[in-house]
């Protein structure tokens, strides 16, 4: 038998392709370099074939799952920093090492609104981190502080603020060095101190100065996400035209879908003919955008101002003042599209949208509605709290300040109330739920947890796909969607123990 050349062939497995289909195909990886190989080039040009062959018994071999919004896990909260750098780093390391059992191999730690002085430090600590035996921390996701008070959820209201100086405020709060336009970290060597990683900022575009700030941030390579907002349709659309690529946990912390002012949720149904400046588009429209639009349309958030005034209650029963007329695209003198089939290919692109698919944060029907409207933009997230731990049994657990919480499956309640206290679903469970809620195939659900988030962040050449040259971060799932083993950079870092094979966690 020839000496081990460090190449591994996974055979007897199903591979999810980037279009969502599952094919029976072998996958070759280089375990020394930790990358996925182009098998044909390796065979004919390198003249080598793998010496190690692993038979996966018909299981699914998927790129490792990617979670772009997660607040903590295994008892560590990314947003809590008490001055001890070492302890924080250790906490990050622990999360990264343990989360692989849920099939996640890349994640973006998320921090909620903080006291402003903490941001530069924490964001600095959240530099990209990649160790051989743990999931990769891709960078940071800052939710707040430029969010809407009315939709703050669990964020502390005293730290919310507007951005009067636009991008400068961003730099003041987050730290200018954290927003520097550096070359993509994936092209720099591992461990480089100055590496700047993936950065996501969630903010409300109707808050003062945010829209100006987002234009500059997008130029710096930051992924701007609309969330915790009450923006009207016009403002939300304008934000997307300015470069917002993502919607934070769709349906949660945003206005309900009103049919005459669909707002942020309605972005999934935006027309392809929305004008994009500097784009060579034959059609023009007078779809209101820009500053005039903001002035013309009813005052921002007026629908909600009224609601807040009238007190709590289901929004469905409120009599809301609706805009006098739904804006329409002005007719243009050119032929309409004549060929049946795909939607017009126009410069305007709808944003990606995150969804927490635990069946609790959104009703399964809502999940299916969103997916049907715009499948290519769907990203699954957990938005998990620090309590996330698949091994935690149901029941009462200590939290903080003497309070306890009750865990019931994926539901988390503050003891004594019916208030949902956050999410503790794992990403692989989201994938399984998603197939049930929408009726889609396992390959398409995996696409929403691997390729779509990678594409949104712009890292699809390295993470989230099975392309040649991508990192060999893989997860083996059985055909029911349960994680059997997880691989990071070509090495198996977690394997389901024999005794647990029947456990459905």
């Amino acid at each position, binding site marked *: 038998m020839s000496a081990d050349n460090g190449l591994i062939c996974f055979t007897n497995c199903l591979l999810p392709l980037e279009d969502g289909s599952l094919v029976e195909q072998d996958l070759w990886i280089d375990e020394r370099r930790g990358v996925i190989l182009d098998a044909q080039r390796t065979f004919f040009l390198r003249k*080598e074939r793998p010496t190690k062959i692993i038979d996966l018994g018909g299981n699914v071999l998927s790129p490792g799952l990617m979670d772009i919004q997660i607040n903590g896990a295994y008892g560590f909260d990314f947003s809590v920093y008490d001055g001890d750098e070492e302890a924080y780093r250790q906490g990050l390391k622990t999360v990264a090492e343990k989360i692989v059992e849920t099939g996640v191999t890349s994640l973006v730690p998320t921090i909620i609104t903080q006291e402003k002085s903490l941001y530069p430090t924490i964001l600095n600590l959240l530099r990209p981190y990649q160790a051989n035996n743990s999931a990769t921390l891709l960078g940071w996701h800052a939710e707040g502080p430029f969010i809407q008070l009315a939709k703050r959820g669990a964020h502390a209201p005293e730290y919310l603020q507007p951005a009067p100086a636009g991008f400068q405020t961003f730099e003041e709060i987050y730290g200018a060095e954290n927003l520097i336009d550096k070359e993509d970290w994936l092209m720099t060597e591992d461990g480089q101190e100055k590496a700047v990683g993936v950065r996501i900022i969630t903010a409300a575009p109707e808050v003062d100065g945010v829209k100006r700030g987002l234009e500059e941030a997008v130029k710096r390579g930051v992924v701007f996400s609309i969330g915790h907002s009450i923006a009207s349709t016009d403002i939300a659309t304008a934000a997307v035209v300015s470069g917002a690529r993502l919607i934070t946990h769709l349906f949660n912390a945003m206005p309900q879908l009103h049919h005459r002012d669909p707002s942020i949720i309605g972005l999934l149904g935006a027309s392809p003919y929305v004008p994009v400046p500097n784009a060579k588009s034959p059609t023009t429209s007078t779809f209101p955008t820009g500053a005039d639009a903001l002035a013309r349309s009813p005052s921002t958030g007026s629908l909600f101002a009224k609601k807040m005034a009238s007190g709590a209650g289901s929004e469905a029963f409120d009599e809301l003042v609706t805009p006098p007329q739904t804006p329409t695209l002005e007719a243009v003198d050119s032929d309409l599209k004549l060929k049946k089939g795909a939607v017009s290919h126009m410069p305007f692109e709808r944003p990606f949208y995150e969804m927490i698919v635990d069946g609790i944060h959104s009703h399964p029907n809502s999940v299916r509605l969103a997916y049907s409207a715009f499948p290519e933009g769907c990203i699954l997230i957990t938005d998990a709290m620090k309590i996330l731990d698949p091994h935690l049994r149901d029941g009462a657990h200590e939290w903080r300040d003497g309070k306890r919480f009750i865990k019931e499956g994926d539901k988390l309640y503050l003891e004594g109330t019916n208030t949902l206290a956050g999410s503790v679903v794992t990403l692989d469970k989201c994938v399984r739920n998603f197939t049930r809620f929408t009726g889609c195939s396992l390959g398409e659900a995996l696409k929403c947890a691997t390729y779509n988030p990678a594409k949104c962040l712009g890292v699809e050449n390295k993470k989230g796909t099975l392309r040649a040259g991508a990192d060999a971060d893989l997860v083996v799932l059985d055909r029911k969607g349960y994680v059997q083993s997880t691989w990071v950079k070509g090495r198996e870092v977690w394997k389901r123990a024999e005794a647990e094979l029947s456990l459905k966690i």
Partner: protein
Amino acid sequence: SSLASHKKPLLKSIPLVHSIFNLPRSIYPSGLRSSRLVHFDVVTSLRTPEGGEAWAFILDEWSTRLDSRLPTPAPHTKIFLVVTDVGSWRDVLSAELECSSTWRWDAQLRGRRKEETEEMRQDEMRLLEDFTTCSSLSRSVGGHSTTPTASIKSANLEESHQRPESVPLGSKQMLTPAQNRLIIRDDTSSVGQYIGDYIAKRINDFKPTAEKPFVLGLPTGSSPIPTYKHLIKLVKDGKLSFKHVVTFNMDEYVGLPEDHPESYHTFMFREFFSHIDIPPSQVNILNGNAKDLIGECNAYEAKIKSYGGIEIFLGGIGEDGHIAFNEPGSSLSSRTRIKTLAYDTILANARFFGNDISKVPRMALTVGVQTVLDSREVIVVVTGQRKALALSKAIEEGINHLWTLSALQLHPWALIVVDEDATAELHVKTVKYFKSIERVQDEVEAMHAQFRENGGKDITGGQDA
């Protein structure tokens, strides 16, 4: 003068002529065999195991006369005379040998006679073995002896690599009856299974090693896919290994990048090589992007020769009866070369290039008809109704360069495996004939196997199939 009686010496004082025996041309050991002419006055010099010398003369229809300028061989030099057809040469030979005064004809002229006794046959076998041992030893020592005569030349001994002793003459594996077989099966998957099992058996019986690999020629196209699938299954079941198999593909487009989805590199990798355990260095496919295409073709031929020739060449057939890219009108003695594709072929291929004719390659490198026929065995897979006409032309009609597969009729050991649909244009008589002899063929092959197992040596292509 009749040489019927073998008790009378033909000539005086030839201490050396050992034996003349009848061998079909196709089983000359490499180095002495070629498709070109060998002259009687060419002596091939060999070495015996004991370090002595041996000479061999080969007679064929162009041989003229024993060159009297040849020096007298030393005593006890073995000499072999190989003729292709004893009958026609008896008279000439006897005349020559009689006239020559320097030679004494000691041995007897043998041929295929009815009264051939077992003893005579054993003798013959032994001599044949001697002959081949000498010739192969000579090969392994690296060529010719140092006999100084100018006229000792070898018109056909090429300075090629040693031919590995893959199939020595007289050994069990090599000499099966020369035959052309047509096997008919119900559908494409049974055809694939038959060929897969056959190739697996041949490889396993051959027992290939690193020094003596099994050389296999492979095709592309839709016909061989069931065969590949079955071979893959055998490899995955552990019944077959390609670790010591060397493959040569038939053809490749010119100018198409290797990783293009329609290139034959992609096809072979996707359909076959990625699933079996063949080492990549043992895979040979023509390089259609070489700077020197003609050099590439010549190098390919040379590489085949360096392995001692191809053991089995598996091939398919085109609707116009072509084998590899040897389209109608190709010379039947062609070698590996550049071939411009016929308009029909380009049209047929357009569907793989987005129906854009301008993107279809116009040239291809292909092995020639003669390259395929030089292999020891040829297996052709013909399935589907579209190939029926081509099959009938190739089997039932004459050898015709417009149906290049018909050249197979000249090959001593060919196997064509077809499915029922492909027999659509054959005469009922033909189909019935081949179906009936398939049963008998098994019996005869069993007999030969038995004979070999008992230590006997087949020397002839006795089978008249």
